[in-house]
């Protein structure tokens, strides 16, 4: 569905490439996690996709169509993104205003808007807070509102750019649970960007990035299996994986491997 073909990008003030000849595929209906340490280029990836950053080489194709200036508005209408900082993406003065913001921008009729806002808030369990101001919400609640704002647009693709990294454990759990529900119910394609290996468990596919390159890619099992790639990209292994790795080399087995050994 989304294809990065040999994409290279560098920030003006830096001499190395933030993305270095990246080729990647994100498939429709899948939950893809992109894992990487700070500065690995994982956020740059989505910024290019959403047209926030310009001036890269290579091409990005969406459903076979090359991303250009002309179809960017249309793409933004179909993709929704939730950023890291809960405060800095809350545009509306109240919860429902914020959820409606994207709909307003796209000129949706008011009656339809009211219905969609309500539906989206219900999906993230925030309906009872609809008239609240952002200053009265916790970080996790604000992120749930941001997700509702994204859902209200009925996007083909939902991108979460470190959306849980500023939340407390409870907020993190809530957000992940809701995302799982949405992914299951609506088959929404999800790109989940994180540096926390413990959060990738639910994804269908995962990509490990380091210094602007993809160093490993596969199912979650395959990712966990290759601990070397994870350690070399300075990621913190989840405790159980670390333990298994220490106790016995190659203890984290793929399914086939396990069957064979048994």
């Amino acid at each position: 569905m989304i294809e990065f073909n040999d994409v290279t990008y560098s920030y003006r003030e830096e001499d190395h490439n933030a993305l270095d000849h990246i080729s990647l595929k994100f498939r429709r209906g899948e939950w893809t996690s992109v894992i990487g340490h700070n500065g690995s280029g994982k956020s740059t990836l989505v910024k290019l996709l959403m047209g926030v950053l310009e001036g890269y080489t290579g091409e990005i194709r969406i459903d076979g169509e090359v991303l250009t200036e002309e179809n960017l508005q249309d793409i933004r209408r179909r993709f929704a993104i939730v950023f890291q900082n809960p405060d800095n993406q809350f545009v509306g003065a109240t919860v429902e205003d914020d959820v409606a913001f994207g709909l307003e921008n796209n000129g949706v009729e008011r009656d339809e808007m009211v219905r969609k806002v309500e539906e989206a808030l219900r999906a993230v369990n925030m309906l009872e807070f609809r008239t609240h101001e952002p200053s009265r919400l916790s970080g996790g609640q604000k992120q749930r509102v941001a997700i509702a704002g994204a859902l209200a647009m009925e996007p083909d693709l939902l991108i979460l750019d470190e959306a849980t990294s500023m939340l407390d454990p409870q907020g993190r759990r809530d957000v992940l649970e809701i995302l799982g529900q949405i992914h299951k119910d609506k088959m929404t394609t999800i790109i989940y960007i994180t540096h926390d290996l413990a959060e990738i468990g639910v994804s269908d596919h995962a990509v490990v990035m380091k210094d602007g390159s993809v160093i490993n890619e596969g199912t979650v099992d395959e990712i966990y299996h290759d601990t070397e790639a994870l350690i070399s990209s300075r990621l913190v292994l989840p405790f159980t994986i670390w333990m298994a790795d220490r106790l016995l080399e190659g203890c984290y087995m793929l399914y086939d491997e396990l069957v064979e050994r048994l």
Partner: protein
Amino acid sequence: MLSKMLLGRYIPGTSLVHRIDPRAKIIAVLLFMIIVFFANHWTGYLLLILFVLSLTKLAGLSLIFLFNGLKLILLLIIFTFMMHLFFTKGGTVLVDAGWFTIETEGIIRGVYITIRLAMLILITTLLTLTTSPLSLTDAIERICRPLKALRVPVHEIAMMMSISLRFIPTLMDETEKIIKAQSARGSTFMTGSLRARLNALTPIFIPLFISAFKRAEEMAVAMEVRGYHGEKGRTSYRVLDWQFKDTAVIIMMVLFGIVLFMIRQ
């Protein structure tokens, strides 16, 4: 003291005054600002006072509460009263201390001006106390819409206002955090000469500004990817619903003005 300040604050409620369309309230307050100058006799002033007091009652706010919140403004009112007391001449001389005199006309004018000022402040405070900043912004946007013909960017200004309002609590929290962080590093803000205290504010404002710019940038990106491209083709989630009671408010205000005008002497 700041927590008691009422200027610009909003007290949520469900009274009739709260429920009037914000556009009607703004127009009524503007009318009142003109009407205040119709009164030139004690009956007129009495009516003004009664009018504002009954509005306060209707809004479910207590006078003591208002008075406490407006103490700072009181200084201004007393000052204007004093100016009239000492410098307006006419009528019989009450006090003659050689280098200054107090005359009856001075007292009367002073009292009248005081009432005018106090009523103006009260009614505008009532407006902000009973109307959320958000609906005020909405109302101002709608009222100013005709200015668009003169190329005034009404929508953009309203958008900026509502985002600023939304960020006030966020930046307040941030300021508090920075003050704590700097205090923990040994900064003192409450002691020393005025100069020293002003200097001590620098380590608060610089981080605050940096983070505000960072927030603004992130906010701009978030708005952009959510499809914000100015006013063109945009619909509005919030609607203002002008009802009969709102027209009635304006009519009442006009009638009140006419009555005050009739009893002029």
